[in-house]
């Protein structure tokens, strides 16, 4: 594991430092990036000690979580309806099918026109991406539940509401969490792009600004931070999922 990281860093350093190619020379080398990232007085104003760094992080995180929360609150119930009732699915899946091929980032210009400021536009696009992922995976989750569970519940006198709470939701949970993981990844993905195109703050914006002002180490710092936040948020969802779905552990010692 460590060998891999050291090897990669060494390779990166070697390329930047010695390879005569012009394009390699322009790239920031790892040492410069790390020293900038950790220095109390960073030459370009962005390091773990500077307040601006955390402001960008805060903006990005707030936007991502707002979009993600909206996508979950809207996407899961809609996904359950699509998965559980054929007639509702008839209405919704055609509409979703029509809108889905349009890449989320293509919505940015339209979103900025509709939502006056860029703030709402970026959040809308990030929401859209996460919404599609959550809704579709929830619907697949509900459809994949073994029909015997519905029948067993009906035999035991469960009402439709009981079946929703005792069969549909818990049964679809594994797929819902897969959807949430994908949604979180996609949210960060489109957030970064949205910020690069249309925002005043946020890590995506920071990357573009650093590029325009030729502050190369800051570009890499912002990229690494985005990657880290993406990884951490997915891990958070995984942990939440395992806690909610403790029943999925394999058999403990009882021989089959």
């Amino acid at each position, binding site marked *: 594991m460590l060998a891999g990281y050291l090897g990669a860093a060494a390779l990166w350093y070697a390329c930047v430092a010695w390879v005569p190619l012009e394009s390699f020379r322009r790239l920031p080398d790892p040492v410069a990036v790390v020293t900038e990232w950790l220095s109390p007085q960073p030459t370009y104003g962005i390091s773990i000690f500077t307040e601006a760094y955390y402001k960008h992080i805060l903006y990005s995180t707030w936007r991502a979580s707002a979009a993600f929360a909206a996508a979950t609150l809207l996407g899961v119930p809609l996904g359950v309806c699509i998965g559980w009732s054929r007639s509702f699915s008839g209405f919704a899946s055609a509409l979703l099918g029509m809108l889905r091929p349009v890449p989320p980032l293509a919505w940015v210009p339209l979103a900025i026109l509709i939502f006056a400021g860029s703030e709402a536009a970026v959040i809308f696009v990030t929401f859209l991406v996460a919404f599609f992922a959550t809704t579709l995976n929830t619907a697949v989750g509900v459809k994949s539940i*073994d029909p*015997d*569970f519905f*029948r*067993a*519940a*009906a*035999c*035991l*006198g*469960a*009402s439709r509401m*009981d079946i929703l709470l*005792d*069969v549909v939701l*818990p*049964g679809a*949970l594994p797929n819902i969490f897969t959807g949430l993981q994908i949604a979180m990844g996609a949210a960060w993905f489109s957030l970064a792009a949205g910020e690069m195109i249309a925002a005043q703050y946020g890590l995506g914006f920071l990357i573009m600004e650093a590029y325009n002002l030729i502050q190369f180490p800051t570009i890499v710092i912002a990229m690494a931070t985005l990657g880290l936040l993406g990884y951490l948020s997915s891990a958070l969802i995984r942990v939440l999922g395992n806690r909610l*779905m*403790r*029943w*999925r*552990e*394999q*058999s*403990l010692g*009882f*021989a*089959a």
Partner: protein
Amino acid sequence: MSGALSIRGVGKTYDPEGASVEALRDCSFEVRAEEFVAIVGPSGCGKSTLLNAIAGFDTVTAGQITLDGRLLAQPGLAPKPGPDRVVVFQHGALFPWKTVLENVTYGPLRQKALSREAARAKALELLRASGGLDSTAASYPAQLSSGMQRRVEIVRALMNDPPLLLLDEPFRAMDGFSKATMHQHLLDLHRRYRKTIVFITHDLDEAIYLADTVVVMTTRPGTVKEIIRVGLGRPRVPQMLYSRDYAELKRSAAQSVHEEARRAFERGEREQA
């Protein structure tokens, strides 16, 4: 004394996209209260279709099914499953996300038939009587062996005191040894709780060893080919498996069941071609 099931002239025709398939035609037999009846037939003979009609998962297009005089199925009647005839499913249907206790008390609690404490007490008692399963009350189904899961599912059914218990090839996926244990367990439950049992299987040996009456079905469209009274006496013990009567019963039944099996097998191969 309840649990008398009567199947009169039952027929079922599916028409997916117009190509009408007749699964059951004029199927009739009676199941006396507290009797153990096995339904045997090759795959595709309509065993599951009949079970779905009795359980209320699907309609019938002809005939009538009644339980203790109450109408269960009839053309035009909306099917409604209920705790008076609970199904134990082939691949098991314990809710994986609920503990054993939550699974078993699910029925009475949903029907508000028992208070939480009464349901819990009854559940633990029934689980203890099913091979000391009360110790697994807090475990999740995934942590149990297939044999134990099967017994918990039967307890979940018994918790509703159903006059009729419907078993859909419950031991099909089990290995020979667990199956032998489950046979004894099921016979023991039938003796102790005096429930009428309708047991679907494609395994003739299992049907003869367990049942009082074996209903042999024809291949599609399924109807009753033969009704065999099993005179092995009760309680059934494994020693009967190598008794002369058992061997004779099996030989005569095997002949008619094999005919259907061969026809179904040929049709299966033809459909593959």
